[in-house]
């Protein structure tokens, strides 16, 4: 493809790359990737947001580096080198969060380190960043990152409101509210995600019908 047509095409597609991560290819609701952190740290809205942002940051940085190096990394060792790149940025994030808020670091626990094995990041590196230009990869990472954070927030908010009667630690209901303890427990994570998937499926089927 010549340079001219690539750049003119890019103007149209950059926003597309961004938008697709938000809804059509939402990493959580549609692709069902990166489930472990989604379920594990979505018990409160603030945890969910922090986790989403941390993942988005790692995704962005690794996408940039992978797409910069895409012509230099031999095909046979590409997965190993992607994982090394991701692990490096996760270590950076881990130390950064510890520096910003020890409390947050404690409540997220080992799950920050576990961003390394988030299939979402590796799949974007393999499926997108290794084949596309840097600027496109940035938009892709931003879209996917925001989509992921959004999905995490949807789960975290529902679980905190029902399980704790609050949102961002602000009580929402009068004193009589009986909180649904099950929602903050592991089982609640499975149920909440399942219900979100049902809603999304319903919307999708209605769309294809009309």
């Amino acid at each position, binding site marked *: 493809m010549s340079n001219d047509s690539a750049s003119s095409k890019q103007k149209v597609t950059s926003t597309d790359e961004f938008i697709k991560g938000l809804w059509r290819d939402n990493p959580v609701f549609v692709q069902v990737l990166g489930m472990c952190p989604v*379920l594990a740290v979505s018990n409160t809205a603030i945890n969910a947001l922090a986790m989403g942002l941390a993942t988005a940051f790692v995704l962005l940085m690794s996408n940039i580096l992978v797409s910069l190096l895409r012509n230099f990394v031999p095909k046979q060792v590409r997965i190993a080198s992607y994982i090394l790149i991701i*692990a490096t940025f996760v270590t950076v994030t881990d130390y950064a969060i510890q520096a910003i808020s020890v409390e947050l670091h404690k409540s997220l626990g080992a799950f920050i380190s576990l961003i390394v094995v988030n299939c979402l990041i590796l799949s974007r590196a393999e499926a997108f960043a290794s084949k596309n230009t840097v600027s496109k990869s940035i938009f892709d990472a931003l879209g996917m990152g925001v989509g992921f954070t959004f999905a995490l927030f949807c789960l975290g908010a529902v679980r905190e409101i029902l399980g704790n009667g609050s949102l961002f630690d602000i009580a929402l209901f009068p004193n009589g509210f009986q909180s649904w303890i099950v929602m903050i427990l592991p089982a609640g994570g*499975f149920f909440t995600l399942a219900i979100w998937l049902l809603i999304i499926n319903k919307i999708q089927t209605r769309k294809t019908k009309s």
Partner: protein
Amino acid sequence: MNTESLGAIFLNACLVNNFVLAYFLGICPFLGVSGKMETATKMGAAVMFVMLISSMCAYGIHAFLVAIDAPFLQLISYIVVIASTVQLVEMFIKKISPALFKSLGIFLPLITTNCAILGVALFQTNKEYGFLESIVYALGAGAGFTLALVLIAGLREQLNFADVPKISKGTALTLFIAGILSLCFMGFAGLGA
């Protein structure tokens, strides 16, 4: 040093804090290969083996990194060990049983990104387990993973014949079952304490 007994560590890792149903680790293969009983069992065995090897290596690596005072290399070296173990298992299975190799498909190399395995390595470091305790912990976690996988696979095989609403087919339904199973496993709380 942690003072739990070995039996308690095993029970804790396997049932009370089941890796899949309480910690949400290893959900991807859990959703992906739990469609058939046979594949689920073998996947469980493969994961358990990788867990055991990587847990032993992680113990050595951790001791070494403490000695040279470079804790920031922890994550990177763990993941490299896991990736090489998986490669080993992959070659082994390909040689022994090509049919199994095919049925596990993409999920075999993806064991590398199975959070449960890295989780075992990280948790045992956090809990400051000794060598023997680490091995028991890894075995327990592997057994718990296999148990959860087999349970779900059995349920899903039965549910294939059930007439569920169209929108709940697939992942959503599996998540509902997983939620109910997770509730059941809460009954084990306090067992290993």
